[in-house]
């Protein structure tokens, strides 16, 4: 698989990577009212990284990363824990949702729910886990006896 690059995959990666990420974000935020959510969104975004890996191998995947996957996992856990505990610190039961409705000109009414932040944590963590496994299992030096 390594060494040979497929033009089709290469082009698909170039055009689709950002699109998939946007779709994954859409699934993530839509999840509160329709099918989707942090886990599904994270897996879709993970799919984008899989595509990049298939197109260019571990090296290219590594180059495409803004930060290390472990940082994503840690950040995701932190965000989820943070949203879990904030209500408890404020005196409500843990995980109580805060709902804020904003009227933004042009865009319309936006409803912000604090539990969406929890989902963002899940999303970050799942992306981190997928990339981490890709890098761990997909890096070249492991190819001992192919």
């Amino acid at each position: 698989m390594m060494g040979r690059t497929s033009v089709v995959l290469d082009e698909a990666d170039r055009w689709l990577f950002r699109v998939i990420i946007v779709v994954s974000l859409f699934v993530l935020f839509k999840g509160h009212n329709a099918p989707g959510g942090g886990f599904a969104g994270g897996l879709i975004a993970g799919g984008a990284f899989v595509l990049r890996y298939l197109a260019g191998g571990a090296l290219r995947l590594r180059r495409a990363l803004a930060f290390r996957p472990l940082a994503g996992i840690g950040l995701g856990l932190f965000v989820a824990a943070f949203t879990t505990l904030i209500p408890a610190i404020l005196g409500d039961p843990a995980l109580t949702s805060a709902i804020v409705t904003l009227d933004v000109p042009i865009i319309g009414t936006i409803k912000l729910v604090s539990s969406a932040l929890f989902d963002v944590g899940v999303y970050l963590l799942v992306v981190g886990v997928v990339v981490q496994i890709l890098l761990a299992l997909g890096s070249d030096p492991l190819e001992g006896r192919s």
Partner: protein
Amino acid sequence: MTLLLALHALVAVLALSVLRRQPRVGAWLGVAVLAATAVYAVAAGTTAEPHGESWIWVEALGWGIHLRLDGFAVLMVLIVSVLGAFVLAYATTYFDMDQRFVRFVGIFVLFAGAMNGLVMSADLFTMFVFWEITSVTSFLLIGLNDESATARFAALRALLVTGAGGLCLLAGLSLIQIVAGTTAFVDLATNTPAGTVIDVALVLVLAGAFTKSAQFPFHFWLPGAMAAPTPVSAYLHSATMVKAGIVLIARMAPIFGDRALWQWLIVGAGVATIMIGGARALGQTDAKLLLAHSTVSQLGLLTILFGIGVPIATYAGVAHLLAHAVFKAGLFLGVGMVDHSFGTRDIAVLSGVGRRMRTAMVMGGLATASMAGIIPLFGFATKEKSLAALLKTTDYVGAAGTVALVGVVAGSMLTVAYSIRLFVGMFGTKPEVAETELHHAPSLGLWLPVYVISLASLVFGLWPSAVGRLLDAPASSLDAQSAGELVLWPGVNTAFALSVVIVIVGVVIARLVPLRLIGSRIRLSGEEIFRAMYDGLLEFSRVATSRIQTGSLLAYIAVTLLVISAALVVGVLAGFDADLLDGVIWFDSAAQLVIAVSMAVLALVVVFIEQRFVAALVIGGVGLGCAALFALHGAPDLALTQVLVETMTIVVFLLVLRQVPQRFEAPPRWAPRVLRVGIAVAVGGVVALFAALVSGSRTAPSSGISYADLSLPEAGGKNIVNVILVDFRGFDTFGEITVLAVAALGVANLVKMARREKSPVGDQP
């Protein structure tokens, strides 16, 4: 007083952090805190009603930190703080100013704080908390010299023994809490629980006390703990920590002391400890080890005096506790001073020390004479009191009292004998041994604490009645009827006659019995039992691990699945009712039936596929079928996630399959294909049956219904599944993503390890 305890912790932290470069400053801060605690104890302790402070933790259980400064607590705080201040001051001269001293200061002050907390504890739970802190700090202090394997093992042994005792204490106090609803000493005294459970609890509590105070059969860790630097031994392993068990016994005896079980445990352990400690002390040439065994013996005496539960004995115990703390601290520091000045503390090698250091010899003589109970030292007055008390104890507790008396008298003879041996060995001039060279004369910091503490034995001894009056409050706070007086000259009575006999026999033993004879004869010691148990445990876990962790993935999966289905079968059989299956709807539409049947067929096909890659794809097909079922059942969220997970799983499979042979290896002989298929079908069948039964046996309305109503108003979301995940059951989700994170870390590390194993060897076949 909570503030003072917090100050201890603060100074400890400071000494270990900001003051790393000025350990002396940290040490003197510690001295200041200890001195302040002593002053506070005297000031607050002289009021009529004991001062108490409480910090509640678990209100329903009454758990928290409950402190109470009664008379006995004041005495113990004084011993802990005053001796602590002296020892810490001494240590600034004794140690070199390196990192070890930094650690010593921090841990020492922390220990002193925990010890002060322990003696002020008003209930068993509070005492247990401080108890454990002293165990850990003691471990760290014994192992202070962390480059020595002996010190490390001694520290580990002390921790394991006292830690096991701590667990016993926890179990015991829990039982008492369950039966009596409280562990506060005051409440237990007014409303004493009884019964078999309490007897078990008392055995456990005493086991804890015996480990801490080095009572037989747990006495062996204490001499080993002498691997610690001398200031540590002097303080923790003679004056304070080993008294923790005594404090516990002293608090419990007035409550439970009238039980025969308690009395015989106390007397049995106490007498055995007195004799073993005394006999072993007689056989030592290392002065510090001699003192350690002597401490063991003296702790046995204190256990009997406090534990027998007789008011007059309690008073004698309080007095002797003070006497022992004073003379033993003086002796330890004195031995440390000689060691520091002459480079050895071996009494077979030392010679001419007394000639070089006259004052030191006089001071050492005072402390030794107090230990042996010679008039007019303080030890004499307290030993007279103890003998007199035990003579009367027989009236209260019968045979146990007689055994105790005989044991104490015999032990005191040994005490006189080893005291003589210690003094002559330390300071005498031996004609057959060359005079020991004086390396450097002790400085003020070394000799001043030794002399002051040793002189206290004489001063207290000359005015025993004054000291005795001060001891009324401590004794009566333990047991309201406990009071007494100490006198310099008791007149010729039974106790005095016994004393005379004790001294004479002691001198004879010291003269006649050759060194090492007795000590070396006692073979069956707890030490060997401990070592056997320690090694046995390691061996057992090694064998157990190699049996259970065979490394065969097949075996792991088979065991896991069979255990799960066995548990389910038991559950199903317990509540089986064919009616429960009546309401089962096998399928809603033909599509469901078709999908389900094809999934089963695909799963069966996997068994006959020989190529790993194809097998992975077919299993993926089973998963997609599951997703289709979800979708047909009206669960788009689950279906979406299932499809995504199946896709990701195939990718991971591909990555892994690059590393393994294309075809499956032949199965091991114990697991032929028929057996594996059988297990799989059985497990699947049981799980399916279980699911069908469970869905038919609902007794309460589904919580999902309330979720549906609450989703929008409470969590602001229309997708109930998602709201459940991130809000209603957010804790579950948090747990799951944590597992996911840990699994990813595990994969990364396993791969890294596999690489490291491969790389240095190069190409392997």
